[in-house]
């Protein structure tokens, strides 16, 4: 019988290797799989390339992973926020690499990676410094930039509910990058607030079909990043 559930976040992140490309869901704190990220810190993989919209807040979650020196490079659209200290400091010191990608191009590159599309043209960034070094081509009189797919060795994702097949639904705007990251990674690891029986999720309302999911771990009361930041928590 298919059952993608594992018993702990430690088991969920086992096997992630040094040098892996790790996609991490979330837009700011909404949808950030903070317990999986902390488990990855404990697990110890190094030289990671992280794909996320941002670069973490305070000293927990993604910021803690970066702060622990585990991340070689961040691919993101917006690495600044009012509570981001860790990434800016390392970046200014030349100790971490940044690939800055417009947010929609980032989303489309991830979606392309999941859909078997190696590259596509987009109008975004044409005529700007972010198109430098990239092929530009005209279609119907307008300039478009060639962008390449992004894939992950691993995705760490937060969802609301899962069944044993890995079918997922999300909560409100915590959905954001999660569904496309599930598609684009070889090994998709999901923390969920609720584990339900097969058949309990309406087949019309499944957002991520289980085919895109490898491991599911039950985290019934996930931490809220902004609260941890406000409390000055540091992980570990």
């Amino acid at each position, binding site marked *: 019988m298919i059952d993608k559930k594992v018993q702990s976040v430690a088991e969920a992140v086992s096997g992630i290797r040094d040098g892996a490309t790790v996609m991490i869901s979330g*837009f*700011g*704190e*909404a*949808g950030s799989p903070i317990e999986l990220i902390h488990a990855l810190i404990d697990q110890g993989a190094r030289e990671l390339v992280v794909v996320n*919209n941002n670069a973490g807040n305070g000293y927990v979650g993604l910021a803690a992973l970066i702060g622990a020196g585990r991340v070689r490079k961040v691919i993101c*659209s*917006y*690495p*600044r*926020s009012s509570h981001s200290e860790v*990434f*800016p400091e390392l*970046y*200014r010191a030349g100790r971490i690499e*940044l690939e*800055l*990608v*417009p*947010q*929609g*191009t980032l*989303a*489309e590159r*991830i*979606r392309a990676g999941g859909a078997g599309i190696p590259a596509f043209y*987009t*109008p*975004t*960034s*044409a*005529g*700007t*410094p*972010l198109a430098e070094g990239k092929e530009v081509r005209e279609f119907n009189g307008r300039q478009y930039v060639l962008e390449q797919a992004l894939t992950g060795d691993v995705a760490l994702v937060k969802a609301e509910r899962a069944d044993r097949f890995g079918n997922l639904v*999300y*909560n*409100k*705007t*915590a*959905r*954001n*990058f*999660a*569904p*496309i990251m599930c598609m684009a990674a070889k090994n998709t690891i999901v923390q969920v607030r609720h584990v339900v029986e097969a058949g309990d999720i309406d087949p019309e309302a499944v*957002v991520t079909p289980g085919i895109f999911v490898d491991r599911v771990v039950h985290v019934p009361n996930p931490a*809220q990043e*902004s609260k941890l930041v406000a409390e000055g928590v540091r992980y570990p």
Partner: protein
Amino acid sequence: MSSKPAGKGLNREAMAWRAAQDIPDGAYVNLGIGIPEMVARFVPAGREVIYHSENGILGFGPPPEPGQEDPELINAGKKPITLQPGTSFFHHADSFAMIRGGHIDICILGAMQVAANGDLANWSTGEGGVPAVGGAMDLVAGVKQVFIITEHTTRQGEPKLLTRCTYPLTGAGVVSRVFTNYGVFDVADGRFVMREIASGIDVEAVRAATEGPLEISADLKVVEAPVPA
């Protein structure tokens, strides 16, 4: 025409109010962070506007009452919002399909510089620091009409409406209208066309504060902002 000292013109609320008047009933609108976010408060009664945010929500409502915030119900500015009948959620690739695919009617953004050819610079001064772009380049590349709300000059008094942007571009030839504290400007045929002027502001003062080619509409009107200026 006498050149009296320029007043401050419209305040932030009045600029947001004026931009809101140009949003038609039934429009799909994306509002940037800062003054643009305030526009939603000033849409005329009787017009139903559907707001989109990059992080995967359409048709959301105003900020919640204090204490009712949901950290998983936010806009792209990471501020709390609310559900209302007709709201829908979708993932980031679908959200930017709406943007890039030309399905959003209007986006309203801030600016560091706007050029008379429609170029926009609003993400970087090119001077180092940690670069961050977010969804701005996607919005200006995809949304049907790009409106800008900005102070007419920098805090140092330097013009922001230029012949050519000197900062790195967000998009080339993308801006169609600019709302400043001095008035309302269309961007057309390589120049700024001033359509409306703020009460108490002198045209020559606007000329002096505008580096790019500026035409004053023969039909120049005064901005009628009911918001206390």
